[in-house]
Structure formats: structure tokens, C-alpha cells
């Protein structure tokens, strides 16, 4: 279990600034799919109620129908839970020193990566389409020097604000590191003396 007050490989002066998940709209699409996949067959059962009752009182068709219906409903429930797990385990953590990206792809693939804020070269926020504009969610891309890929915060809430925050934290971290570097050189010099 991950604790937000004790991040993986946490550094001495590191603290969490922002914890991100995909926008609640992603959750809404799971709920909508669940309601449709349960609601439509349920509506059909209600509409053809007399036929369904005839099936249920049949000693052979009845149990077969009930078993198939049960398997269908349980599958939808499990599918919704799997999708929710995928949503729940996709997280991005921004600290004062690093960005940590944890992405769950299906049930069997998981990618956890991190990058130092000082290595960030470019941050881009992207809002595309009517839904993303109305609900203020979108993508943030964080590009680093010498990296093949780039960090992608998928469908997060308020990407513009996150982009500004990352940019500010990158500047602060670079200043902190250059101050540390100057201090460090000074210390080495003093040791040499």
C-alpha cells in the first residue's frame, strides 16, 4: 500500500505538492457504461415480462436463464470494478523535487517512473474538444532533456494550473540545486584548503 506521507524513495527534504488522478469524467464514463449494460437488458426483461416469467417457470429453461443472467450481471460488475481499478491506480504525484508517474494498464501491466524536476525542459497543457473545454480537463506533457518519451498526465483536472505549477516548481528546484551546487563547491574548496 502506498502512503502519501511516505513516498517511494523519498528524499530527506521532499514533500508532496500535488496528487493527481484522471478527471472524474473518466469515472462517469465507467458508471454510464455500467448503467447502460445493466439497464438495457433490465428494460427488455420488464418489457417482455410475460415471456420471461414463462421461461422462469419452465423447469429447464428457468435455471438456464437465471444462471446466464447471473453470469452476465456478475461479469458487468467485475468489468466495472476492473475499469475502476485501472482509473484508481493511475496516479501522478508532484513533489518539490520529482514527478512520479504510476500507470496501470489492464490488470497485468504496471509502469512506475519518476523524473527530477531539474531535468524538465518543457511543459505543455492541452485541452481539446467540447467536453474537455466544458469540464476543464485535458493532458499535460512534461518533456525532459535526453528522454526518449515524455511524461503524460492523462485527462487530469485543470491542466493549465498543473502546467503552471510544474513550471514554477521546476524553476524553484533549479534555483535550489544551483544554490546547493554553489554551496557544495564552496565546501569542497574549504576542505581542499
Amino acid at each position: 500500500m502506498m502512503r502519501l506521507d511516505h513516498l517511494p524513495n523519498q528524499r530527506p527534504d521532499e514533500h508532496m505538492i500535488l496528487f493527481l488522478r484522471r478527471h472524474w469524467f473518466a469515472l462517469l464514463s465507467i458508471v454510464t457504461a455500467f448503467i447502460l449494460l445493466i439497464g438495457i437488458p433490465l428494460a427488455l426483461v420488464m418489457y417482455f415480462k410475460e415471456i420471461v416469467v414463462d421461461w422462469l417457470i419452465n423447469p429447464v429453461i428457468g435455471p438456464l436463464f437465471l444462471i446466464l443472467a447471473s453470469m452476465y450481471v456478475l461479469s458487468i460488475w467485475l468489468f466495472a470494478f476492473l475499469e475502476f481499478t485501472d482509473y484508481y491506480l493511475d496516479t501522478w504525484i508532484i513533489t518539490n523535487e520529482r514527478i512520479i508517474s504510476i500507470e496501470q494498464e489492464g490488470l497485468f501491466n504496471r509502469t512506475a517512473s519518476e523524473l527530477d524536476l531539474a531535468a524538465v525542459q518543457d511543459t505543455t497543457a492541452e485541452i481539446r474538444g467540447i467536453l474537455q473545454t466544458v469540464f476543464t480537463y485535458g493532458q499535460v506533457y512534461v518533456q525532459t532533456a535526453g528522454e526518449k518519451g515524455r511524461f503524460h498526465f492523462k485527462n487530469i483536472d485543470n491542466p493549465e494550473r498543473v502546467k503552471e505549477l510544474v513550471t514554477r516548481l521546476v524553476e524553484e528546484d533549479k534555483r535550489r540545486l544551483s544554490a546547493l551546487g554553489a554551496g557544495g563547491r564552496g565546501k569542497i574548496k574549504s576542505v581542499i584548503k
Partner: protein
Amino acid sequence: MFDLPDINLPIAVFLIVYGAYMVFYVLYSLFNIYHLIRYGVYGLGLYLIVSIFVGGTIILVAGSVFPLLEYEWTLPLSLDRVGDFYNEDLFPAL
């Protein structure tokens, strides 16, 4: 035409299929719950999510199992009479 062999099976064979599916369901659910607990963020929400899933599963399974208990599972399902079930009575309104 040809005659189907006269094989009589109790309708309880449906339960074997249902049981196999339930084994798959339980294994997949446990694996998913393990993932959530292993990699999820510590907090009350995590326990709430797992409880909702387990509770929902119990309700759904109970809602299926109790009506299923009402049926006579020793009733033989004869292969050469399987066509009898597919008759006009099955879809009276269609």
C-alpha cells in the same frame, strides 16, 4: 433424418458451468483486490471501495443463488428431447 443418442443428464450440469464461472470470478476478483491493496493509496477510501465491491458481489450472488435453489436439479435433460423445449411456447408473443 438422424436420431440423437438418448443421453439423460440431470440439469445440475448447468451448475458445473456456473461453478466454473464462479471460480474464474473469485480468482479474478481476488487478484484485482490484491492489486488495489498492494498499489492503492492508503486510506479509508481504499477499504470503502473493496467493501462496496465485495458487498455488491454478495448481493448479486445471493440474488441468483436463492431463486436457483427453488428448482428441481435432478430433473433429467434428455438429449433427444432437447428440441421439445424450443417450441412455440418459448416465444409466445413473437
